[in-house]
């Protein structure tokens, strides 16, 4: 059985820790791969031919290459175009929403400050995208 990995693209250490905690708390046991900036994320996706993540959690504000650029890259490549991408960001700016959906994100979640709410959001996220949602078939 192949690993169903989740790619978490996030530069903030604390946010990585919190996200991990939230996922564990909700019994989501998939392997979580972390990319610390946009370039790392793109490299990971393009490099690992066989082990494409089943879900990409994408932050927008990233060093080197920002989230939208990463998204564009993902959507431009034939191989990765159909991967589910959930934008997970603290921004509620309208422009970010527009850009996110324009360039092909599947979903846009705003990170709540309150951890309980955050954990709840992660739980629903996980439930939906990993259990309920039919993932695209990956060759």
């Amino acid at each position, binding site marked *: 059985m192949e690993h169903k990995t989740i790619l978490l693209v996030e530069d903030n250490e*604390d946010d990585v*820790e*919190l996200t991990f905690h939230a996922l564990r708390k909700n019994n989501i046991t998939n392997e979580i791969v972390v990319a610390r900036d946009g370039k790392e994320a793109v490299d990971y996706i393009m490099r690992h031919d066989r082990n494409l993540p089943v879900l990409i959690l994408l932050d927008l504000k990233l060093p080197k290459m920002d989230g939208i650029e990463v998204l564009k890259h993902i959507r431009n490549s034939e191989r990765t175009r159909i991967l589910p991408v959930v934008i997970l960001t*603290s*921004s509620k*700016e309208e422009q970010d929403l527009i850009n996110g959906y324009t360039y092909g994100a599947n979903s846009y979640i705003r*990170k709540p*400050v*309150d*951890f309980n709410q955050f954990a709840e959001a992660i739980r629903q996220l996980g439930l939906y995208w990993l259990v309920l949602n039919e993932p695209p078939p990956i060759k």
Partner: protein
Amino acid sequence: MIKAVREKNPRNAKQHLESLTKSLEDVGSLAITDKHGTVWSRYPEAPEVIGKNFAFRDWYKGVSRDWTPYVSDLDLRVIGEKDTAIWVVVPVLDEKNTPIGILVSTHRSVMIGNIIKQIPTEQGQSITICDRKGQMIYSSRYQYEKELQTYPFYHEIGKKKKQQATFIEAEDPSMPGQKRYISFSPVPISGGSVFVGRDKRYIFLSEWGYYLQISLISSLIFIIVVFYLFYFRKHVVMQQVVERLKAEETLKRSEERWRELFLRASNAIAVYDAVDDGEDFVFKDLNPAGERIECVKREDIVGKRVTEVFPGVRDFEIMEVFKRVWKTGDPEHFPLSFYKDNRISGWRDNYIFKLNTGEVVAVYEDATARKQAEDEIRNLNIELEQRVRDRTANLEALNKELEAFSYSVSHDLRAPLRSISGFSQIFLDEYYERLDQKGRDYIKRINAASKRMAELIDDLLKLSRVTRAELHYEKINMSLLANTIKDEFISANPERRLRFKIAEDMFVIGDPHLVRIALENLMSNAFKFTRLNPDAYIELGVIEYRGRQAFFISDNGVGFDMEFADKLFNPFQRLHSDREFEGTGVGLAIVQRIIHKHGGEIWAEAEPGKGARFYFTFH
């Protein structure tokens, strides 16, 4: 009166006639005719003779022979009682002694008779006055005033020489067998005669007594006639002189006025005569303003050609206009143009027209100062517009900066907050047992505080977004909007029991996005502060306020103390503690910003425990 006669001014003439009539007794009427005998003025008024020609009358024939005063033969009047009368006519001459009209005075026989009757006569004595033809102007014995009657003894006497006073003895046709002695005497000028008849029986006096009487009577008549003629003439001459003097005076004053205008006008006035069929023009006059503007002296330029005095005038292109105005007589405006020659230069604005005398006049001003002022204004305007553009660009740049700032705030501030909240929560979860009550309490407080900070940041951002927003006006259905918000709230809070009254057909022109935010905030407040009231009632409607449409939203919630009403709209200022009602205190600040952005007003009334009512307008 000469002027009145010359101008045939009936009103003036009538005034003169009226005054003449009043000053001379026993003039029956006065009329003025033109030199052909057509009446055009009469006093007393008699419209039936106005415009009628009387050249057939003896008086006209008499006066028009050599235009000297004349006493006419007896005739019947055409108006009134149509009784007998004689006419005394005086020609009206102008300064050159050409006849311009005739002054006709009517002397009715009955009027003359009244005078004659005053002469005492002896018993049996009769007086008769006849005209040239022997028609009786007056007779004490015979009927004279109703018809033209010839004196019965006229022909008899005619056989004798009538030029000297003499007398005859004749048979009296009315008293057969009786003889009458009739003495007669001619009346000079009028050509008439006086006859005094006496019954033979009554002859007491000697011949020279008769003579005396007759002479007296004829002298009297003579005097009367002469008096009339003389007085008329004198009056007319006096009038002529007075009129002439008055006319001269008026003319002189008028002259002075116009001359003054010419001299004092602030605009230059130049008068030209055309020469060479309009190809060139010669100075006739130039007023002092013109002398000043052109730095010339009138004496130096009068008689000279304009092309000579102002060599640059052909380049100035005004000569065509002069020619055109001179040929057509239509005035023209030659607008602001620049004149230049070796001597002077400047901007001129000309108005050119032609006088009745054929001269061409140019009225103009030195508009150099004006032109400069206009140019300056134009430049200032251009500068101003540039400045406005710069300012706008600045403001836009500033706005962009603010936007970037807000974005930064929304993103960057929240991250550490998330960490604080997140880890304190995890800490609480995982180390709960190892903490005592106090420890747990502290952690909870940390968490709460970070949550609060997040709320504040959110609200700050909302406020700043509202301030930055550009208005896009649309027609908004407020009733629909309010109902939508109400439904959203009810579905989010099904446990609450609320009564609503939302007026129908409420419309407003405004920015839909901002108006929605404002209404949401107001309604959310109403929902919030009625939480403690089991019978919550919220109303939204319109009233008229100072001729404008104003909305109101009222609730029967907890209300507030009006003493703090002025703090109501301050950002983060609250009138209730956090324990009572949640909130950051920014909602009303946001609403006020939105209302003011639309140019409207917002104010509130409330009573603690009774509820609150907010009024707001969008313009």
